[in-house]
């Protein structure tokens, strides 16, 4: 340890003699200058006074072998490199008695990483007696205790799930699952999940207890239209006491109809649903399905059990949308909410320079369309559907084109000022012998990206949908200034207000970046 006797807060005398010994040290009798207020000589202070008395010289830190994180009590695990600032902060927080003295400096002393010891050199200042402040440096040794954090312990028990919820939707795209993922994140419905795996047409959730699975089941029931089936697998049975342990599986199938799908309803169903026309567009999917007739603006709701009684497949989905150009809009006069019935003259974008083929369509998008806009729609006249229900329809009553939504020219997706959180999923184990650059894999990846991009665009367009999910501010401040400067961006492109975005509460770190983000958010 080394000491430095520091300045004192003794009042100055008028006649002050520099460095002349006026008193004898009360301990050893060595002459010292008493006018500064010291009553013991420097050596005696060194020998007797220890301001670091209350500070322990050894302490423990816990370290998870698996995920290489340090424990910050009571329960937070922090990732920190050896000899980093976060680790220093963690070590100092562990030390009791450090608040009684003033900390001046702290630094690491190098130790061999395998020795499981961390050594920190601290310099503190404190009051020794009456008027003297002394500064002392000392060393504290931390023993790194290797253990397993709760998360890792949990991850090692994937095979001991007691209940599983398997969600499937037999459609070629994944938009519903993306939306479901955001809903689950917002309502935190995945807290008790042991693990999540992806399967071909959906997701599997694994739970340790049956009632957790039932809770997830109830949650899903309230947000998407589903059909659930429960099955049990007997694991063990005690004949004498009559108790048995089972593994439970809940198979859930989500209705295959998604937003903006073109649907033909069975005749009986259409009649029972306030006599709506059979040829409808699906406008909203929550725990019920909402259909709308684009020619009359009539909407009906269909609940999941009614659907499953006599299920039907959609006629066409979003991947079969064709681009059209609006030539003329004439509102009819009827409007319902944000839908305005209008007669719109459209031509296919690919037809524009080639021929004069136009179509006269009655559509619900009168409010959004102006001449010159591009819209997406189903080209019914040119499509060949494989559906018995469609064949039974009277062809004269079926419109040639059904306009679904407006197409906005968007800039590249990197400039969004908002972002979404993703759920951590376990993917299938990577097999080194497989070839990952094969075409099918690439196609899969591309498809997934396209679906995600579509999903983000949908979120931008529809405010109602946005209410149900959590959007977070993205840390791309430079991009905000560049907005609106490019010519090829459509000025009507839907933007999300910054007020709707939540601040992302990252794990608290000691980084300057972390501090800045927190400062921004407040």
């Amino acid at each position, binding site marked *: 340890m080394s000491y430095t006797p520091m300045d004192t807060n003794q009042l100055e005398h008028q006649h002050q003699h520099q460095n002349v010994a006026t*008193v004898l040290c009360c301990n050893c009798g060595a002459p010292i200058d008493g006018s500064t207020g010291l*009553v013991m000589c420097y050596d005696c202070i060194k020998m007797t006074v220890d301001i670091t008395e209350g500070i322990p010289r050894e302490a423990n830190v816990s370290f998870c072998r698996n995920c290489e994180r340090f424990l910050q009590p009571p329960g937070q695990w922090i990732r920190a490199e050896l000899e980093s600032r976060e680790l220093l902060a963690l070590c100092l927080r562990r030390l009791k008695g450090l608040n009684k003295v003033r900390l001046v400096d702290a630094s690491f002393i190098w130790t061999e990483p395998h020795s499981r010891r961390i050594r920190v050199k601290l310099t503190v200042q404190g009051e020794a007696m009456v008027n003297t402040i002394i500064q002392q440096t000392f060393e504290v040794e931390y023993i790194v205790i290797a253990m397993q954090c709760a998360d890792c312990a949990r991850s090692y028990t994937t095979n001991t799930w007691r209940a599983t919820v398997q969600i499937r939707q037999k459609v070629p795209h994944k938009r519903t699952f993306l939306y479901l993922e955001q809903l689950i994140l917002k309502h935190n419905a995945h807290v008790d999940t042991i693990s999540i795996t992806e399967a071909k047409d959906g997701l599997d959730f694994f739970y340790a207890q049956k009632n957790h699975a039932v809770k997830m089941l109830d949650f899903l029931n309230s947000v998407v239209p589903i059909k659930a089936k429960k099955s049990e697998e007997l694991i063990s049975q005690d004949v004498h006491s009559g108790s048995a342990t089972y593994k439970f599986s809940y198979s859930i199938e989500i209705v295959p109809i998604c937003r903006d799908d073109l649907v033909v309803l069975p005749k009986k169903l259409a009649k029972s649903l306030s006599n709506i026309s059979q040829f409808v567009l699906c406008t909203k999917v929550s725990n019920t399905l909402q259909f709308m007739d684009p020619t009359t603006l009539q909407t009906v709701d269909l609940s999941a059990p009614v659907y499953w009684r006599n299920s039907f497949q959609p006629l066409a989905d979003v991947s079969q949308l064709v681009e059209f150009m609006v030539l003329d809009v004439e509102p009819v006069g009827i409007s319902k909410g944000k839908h305005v019935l209008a007669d719109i003259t459209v031509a296919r974008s690919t037809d524009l320079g080639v021929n004069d083929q136009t179509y006269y369509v009655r559509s619900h998008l009168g409010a959004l369309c102006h001449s010159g806009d591009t819209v997406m729609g189903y080209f019914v006249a040119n499509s060949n559907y494989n559906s018995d229900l469609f064949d039974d329809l009277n062809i004269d009553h079926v419109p040639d084109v059904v306009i679904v939504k407006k197409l906005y020219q968007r800039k590249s997706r990197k400039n969004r000022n908002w972002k979404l959180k993703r759920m951590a999923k376990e993917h299938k184990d990577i097999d080194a012998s497989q070839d990952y650059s094969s075409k099918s894999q690439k196609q899969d990846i591309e498809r997934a990206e396209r679906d995600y991009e579509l999903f983000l665009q949908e979120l931008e367009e529809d405010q109602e949908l946005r209410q149900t999910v959590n959007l977070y501010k993205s840390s791309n401040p430079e991009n905000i200034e560049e907005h609106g400067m490019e010519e090829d961006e459509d000025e009507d492109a839907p933007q999300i207000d910054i007020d709707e975005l939540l601040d992302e509460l990252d794990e608290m770190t000691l980084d300057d970046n972390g501090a800045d983000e927190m400062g921004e958010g407040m």
Partner: protein
Amino acid sequence: MATRTQFENSNEIGVFSKLTNTYCLVALGGSENFYSAFEAELGDAIPIAHTTIAGTRIVGRMTAGNRRGLLVPTQTTDQELLHLRNSLPDSVKIQRVEERLSALGNVICCNDYVALVHPDIDRETEELISDVLGVEVFRQTISGNILVGSYCALSNQGGLVHPQTSIQDQEELSSLLQVPLVAGTVNRGSSVVGAGMVVNDYLAVTGLDTTAPELSVIESIFRLQDAHPDSISGNLRDT
């Protein structure tokens, strides 16, 4: 002779006792250990009076005196005064002093020939001091400290002042008091030396915490090496 003792676990001897060449006052304590310490040293030489002053036990700080007289504050009860008069020899004059600064032990520092007083003391009190105690009175501070009685322990042979006193102040005071002075501490570094110990010409009593170097300083400045009660000199010394 310098001895160490404690009054009920407190090292501040000068608070609970007053020692002069002709008498000694001690405070009433729970046990009589304190009194025994004095009695062991003083034996039959001088009378030791058990007393309180104004109902308090801080007799050392409330009174000031030398071998000729004793000054007590206004708050001293008649009963206490009577008790003192009975215990002390007749040659000692006892006088009750009407003074705003009633802690006389803090404001007056005296030996048998000279006294230092607090600069704000009353004129009448100053006259009373010079009359009753038979001393020359100086209004002086000890290196900026106005409580002269607390920061200076004085006997006829020498004086101990608090450690922050500069050399210049020490020389000045020494010429005033006509005794050698030294700056030092008592009770392991305490600078309140007047309240930390009592001293007369042949005996000094300090707290139990006093270290050996401190005690050697005290013994050397007060010339206590081989002094005992019989060898007091009552002569005037050259100034």
